[in-house]
């Protein structure tokens, strides 16, 4: 169930979607491809599924070379951002489709479909049509449909992108629990950094067709290897030629060594913490995150001139 991507390049006319991309995905893991629009993450996912062909490079699934295989033969489940529901079929028939195509016996199909509908909590909607379901329900149906033929790999292309915030959070949770139960190798594509960090055990950060860094959430956050990763995964302030996280900055009332002069623009109190937004002398915007205690200790006010400097040594310096 492992996946290997080796030196994959893909161009669409003049536009290079993927440039020499390589990645190893462990069997049974839950990996996220994280990046902004145009980073190539969806293209990579579709290449893994066989919905696109790479110009160069190879894909191996469970050790076997799959690059030349049609999507029908790869046994991968694919979930689309806009559900791609078979609108002329009931929910039950949607979910059963992969099994019907494999000519499984009727009884087996019925049992498996019932099982999956129970898993995604859509049993009551079995005989409805997709048009009668909400977005979140349609996506759960799509998931059940993809899982029905027991794929080796589950691929999700911005699965929650078309849903509203609350439903997104619910389904995110739900996907993670599903993965714990079903344990199929899962790769999902997202541009939402919080989503990736919440759900995935491994994240590949992508930018303009390349993979910038691969690691778990903590590693990416604490030890970013490029400026892009630093800025994309979490917030970063630029001080001189270094980047510092808001909670790694400290505020002093008097000039300090290595500090930057700045004027306080805005102070927002977020319950336990406070955010202080400042404008540095050279015009850069800075954000500092302090505990409430520290805020009260310093007695900061809007318009006040203070000095900001990195509190710890966790900075990213551009080489």
């Amino acid at each position, binding site marked *: 169930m492992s996946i290997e991507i080796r030196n994959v390049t893909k161009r669409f006319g003049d536009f290079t979607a993927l440039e020499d991309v390589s990645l190893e995905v462990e069997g049974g893991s839950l990996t996220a491809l994280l990046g902004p629009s145009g980073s190539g993450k969806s293209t990579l996912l579709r290449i893994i*599924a*066989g*919905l696109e062909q790479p110009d160069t490079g190879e894909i191996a699934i469970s050790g076997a070379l799959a690059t030349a295989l*049609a*999507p*029908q*033969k*790869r*046994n*991968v*489940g*694919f979930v*689309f951002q*806009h559900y*791609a*529901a*078979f*609108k*002329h079929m009931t929910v039950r028939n949607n979910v059963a*489709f*992969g099994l019907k*195509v*494999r000519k499984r016996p009727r009884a087996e199909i019925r049992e498996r479909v019932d099982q999956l509908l129970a898993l995604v909590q859509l049993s009551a909607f079995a005989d409805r*049509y997709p*048009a*009668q379901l909400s977005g979140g329900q349609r996506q759960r149906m*799509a998931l059940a*449909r*993809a899982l*029905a*033929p027991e794929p080796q790999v589950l691929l999700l292309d911005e699965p929650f992108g078309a849903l509203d915030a609350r439903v997104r959070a619910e389904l995110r949770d739900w996907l993670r629990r599903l993965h714990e139960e079903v344990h199929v190798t899962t790769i999902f594509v997202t541009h939402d950094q919080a989503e990736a960090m919440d759900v995935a055990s491994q994240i590949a950060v992508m930018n303009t067709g390349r993979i910038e860094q691969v690691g778990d959430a903590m590693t990416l956050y604490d030890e970013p290897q490029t400026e892009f990763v630093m800025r994309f995964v979490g917030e970063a302030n630029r001080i001189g030629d270094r980047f510092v996280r808001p909670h790694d900055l400290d505020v002093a009332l008097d000039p300090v060594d290595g500090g930057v002069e700045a004027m306080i623009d805005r102070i927002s109190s977020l319950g336990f913490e406070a955010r202080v937004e400042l404008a540095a002398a050279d015009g850069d915007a800075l954000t500092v995150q302090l505990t409430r205690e520290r805020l009260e200790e310093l007695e900061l006010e809007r318009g006040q001139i203070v000095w900001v400097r990195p509190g710890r040594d966790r900075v990213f310096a551009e080489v």
Partner: protein
Amino acid sequence: MGSLAETATIAAPRAASRISGDRASTALSLGIVTTFLTVIVVLPMAALVSTARQDGFGSFWDAITSPEAVAALKLTLVASLAVAALNAVLGTITAWVLVRDDFRGKSLVNAIIDLPFALPTIVAGLTLLALYGPRSPVGINVAYTRTAILLALMFVTLPFVVRTVQPVLQELDSEMEEAARSLGASEFTTFRRVVLPNIFPGVLSGVALALAKAVGEFGSLVIITGNLPFRTEVSSVYIFGRLESGSTVPAAAVAVVLLAISFLLLLAIGAIRHFTTRHDRA
């Protein structure tokens, strides 16, 4: 303050007149449209039906069951159904190629499809005669045969299925097909189970339109078929012949049969349209 009150008083009467204005304008438009339609369409149809019945039902029945009339009707229906079926397949393939394929000159090909709409039917008959008649350069001569009927009808009905299927195919979410493929369906199964059910109503309405056109076709058949009774004479030509020889009542009788067929086809098209949107009505 004063101006506000002014506006209020001006607005009130206008609002009142707007409401009655709408009803009045509905009545007026409806009146004009109905009168126009009555004069142009309804009255002639009424005259037709009335004439067909004017000598009693027995005479009507005799007229439509006369051997020549029956032969013409049979030929008309068989030829039209055959052509409609051919159109269903070839038209769908053409629509598929126009929507999914890409090649140089595609927009030219797309534009040509509408030629049978734009070309006078008599000219259509002549052009077919030029290529498939007595002095055919490719050695095919089907003038005065039933094949000529099929050819002429294929020409005039060519656009119908293509143009009704094209927009449906275009709208079709290609991700549905990708989903089917990722679930293991072969290309043919994907077409059969995912694409076809969704384009089928489009194909059907195209077929109904093609049938209506074929059953009533006249101009393109007049030249190339020779209008031989019992051999290549279709109902429209039969009616024309009866009229020319002064038998207006028998002509009207058969014409009423064609009118009924047209109405039925229109109903079918309406039903298909209603059926098509059922999945979108949650």
